């Protein structure tokens, strides 16, 4: 094979390689973009059904329930306007606390329960995740609700 052919072959191989790699990467990308929604947005239908997303808000005081002796846990995530019940099986992070900010990772069932495969409580007990804080700062509504 002439040096020229060798080089051409190399370039072709690289192009094919890069092309397929890019395709794979793009495919994986879409699947792994995790959007954040608060309970109000979820109930308004903004969140994708059947796809994993992140649900964030505050853990409603007194909502944490365990099925005694098992790993099954239920609690409620709220933004004080709307709430979503969450189901989770497993260990909760150390910093998980009622009345504090939390972000859960999982899917919404058709019945409206959020089944979490991961629960994140970040930083320290006084910290509010920025997405949660931002969603809790709101401009005035059109009229005051009774």
């Amino acid at each position, binding site marked *: 094979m002439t*040096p020229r052919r*060798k*080089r051409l072959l*190399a370039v072709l191989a690289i192009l094919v*390689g890069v092309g397929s*790699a890019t395709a*794979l*990467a793009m495919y*994986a*990308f879409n*699947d*792994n*973009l*995790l*959007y*954040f929604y608060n309970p109000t947005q979820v109930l308004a239908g903004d969140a994708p059904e059947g796809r994993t997303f*992140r649900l964030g808000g505050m853990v409603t005081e007194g909502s944490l329930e*365990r099925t*005694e*002796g*098992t*790993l099954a846990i239920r609690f409620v995530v709220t933004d004080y306007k709307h709430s979503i019940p969450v189901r989770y*099986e*497993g*260990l*909760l992070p*150390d*910093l998980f606390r009622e009345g504090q900010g939390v972000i859960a990772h999982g899917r919404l069932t058709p019945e409206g329960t959020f089944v979490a495969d991961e629960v*994140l409580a*970040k*930083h*320290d*007990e006084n910290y509010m*995740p*920025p*997405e949660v804080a931002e969603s809790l700062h709101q401009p005035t509504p059109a009229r005051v609700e009774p």
Partner: protein
Amino acid sequence: MIPELGHFALILALLLSVAQAVFGLAGAARRREHWMATAGAAVAGQFVFVALAFAALAYAFVQRDFSVLYVAQNSHSQLPLFYRIAAVWGAHEGSLLLWALVLAAWTLAVAAASRSLEAPFRSRVLGILGLISIGFQLFMLTTSNPFTRLMPAAAEGADLNPLLQDFALAVHPPILYAGYVGFSVAFAFACATLLEGRLDAAWARWTRPWTLAAWLFLTVGIALGSWWAYYELGWGGWWFWDPVENASFMPWLAGTALIHSLAVTEKRGLFKSWTLLLAVAAFSLSLLGTFLVRSGVLISVHAFATDPKRGIFILAFLSAVIGGALLLFAWRAPRLKSAAGFEVTSRESFMLANNALLVAALALILLGTLYPLFMDALELGKVTVGPPWFNVVFLLPMLPLLALLGVGMHAAWKRGLLGAWRRRLYAAGALSIAGALVIGAGAYGELRPATTIGFALALWVMISSLLVPITRLRARQPMPAAVVGMVVAHFGIGLATLGITGVQSFKVEKDFALGIGDTASIGGYDFRYGALREVRGPNWRGVEADVVVSRDGREVTILRPQKRAYESGGNAMTEAGIEAGTARDLFAALGDDLGGGRWSFRLQYKPLIRHVWLGAILIALGGAIAAFDRRYRLRVRSEAREAAAVAS
């Protein structure tokens, strides 16, 4: 009193940094001997004062001076001495002071070791390092002063984050910073070269040991962080593609490409533009990492308490330094001429592929890390990019890279592979595939394509690396330190690949609810929950469980996971029980009291995971060995003598 002195020392350090920058750069431009000498003196002075400032802060911590706000926020009267000192760099302000100290130390080292360099070049290097010092010291003095007083003094400190009360994490920042900041040396060398406009290969020879040194520290720092996350964060993960982790990994990738590119520039005078750009990139990524972690634009579990006002400062600093360097590059680099050519199968070719693949990986990781920021800035929603994407995107360039690595190590410069090596490498290849099949089927009873490829590549790299000393010793050829270093480092890469493949393919992680006497089985091991007791530490109290692990009926070990509550904060902390082994790690973490005498446990079986960090240590060791090759020191000295002779 002492904190005020520390504050004052920092101000003096800033003044000296200004002197260092101004006299260094102006002195070189105007060829004024006095000015250039002043820059050198300023370096020493700056180091002394930054060290004094650091000592003052450390003193405040050791003495439990809660009238200093930063101390009150990060310390506690019950905190043991070691952690009181480590708390100095436990949060934003103090860690900046550590940055400044490490930078001053590197600058001093460069100043001391570079006396044989031509004065204007040396002066420019010190001047640029001075500019960077100004940035960090000014940042501290204007937005992040560690010496701010708290009046009235707090009666008790808020305690160091319990996560940080750990040996590995205490030493992690200094080592990591030694790496991050060390890249500033290569950066300064690159900028000085560009400023001079004289871009010969001698620059590459000078920069290489410094870059290797910084790079090896960064390697150790990253490995420490990963190891720490594994046993301390309680969940057995060792890499999360978290923005903070990526912030240290990206400079590492750039640094790896840089080391190899420097080799080519040094040996053959090629890739000059690439090498210069990589030198700028490595440090730029370090600065970028600093920005991402401290400004609040990205959300991360590990990020410092965010303050966007600081973000503005860092961003401005970042833009000035990186933007300036890139403009300098655009202005001067086109003058570079690389005349020589090389064969497709030559070493240069492999190095080029190496660079391209590393940069591709780097770019994709950067994209994934910054994507949430882009989306947020364009108001398209709040997203994070999940680990699976990073895994795919990192794997893709790495597969060909590992394959080429095994060959490229033996390729000759310019001309390409010689016949004898072809046979050896075919044999090594066959051995690797066979070995991968044996491990997969034999040790784990499973043959999966991805796993087999991973194991094969790992073995391939390891065997190929070992072929170097084997053939050299047989031929009674000498092995300079640089070659030994290369072999060790590449072997380490293979070992780490082995570990990663093993752990990702065959790990088992499951949560269980166990009552006393209950047993759970994973990975061929039985974990029996034996007992629970109360335990105490100097500033915490908690519970500890006995988990008896056995295999085929024979007891292997007893794991003792703990759940701790720290006096100061009431934060609960999980201390995992881990049994380390060459073939596998066994892992147990305590969850919560489930009531009815049952607790939740997370149990994990992690095959080959130790080799990830062992591999990393070998990589760093290889770098260290190579950095101290006599070639660099001798050659440099004789060059300097020649330069002096020519000048006179």
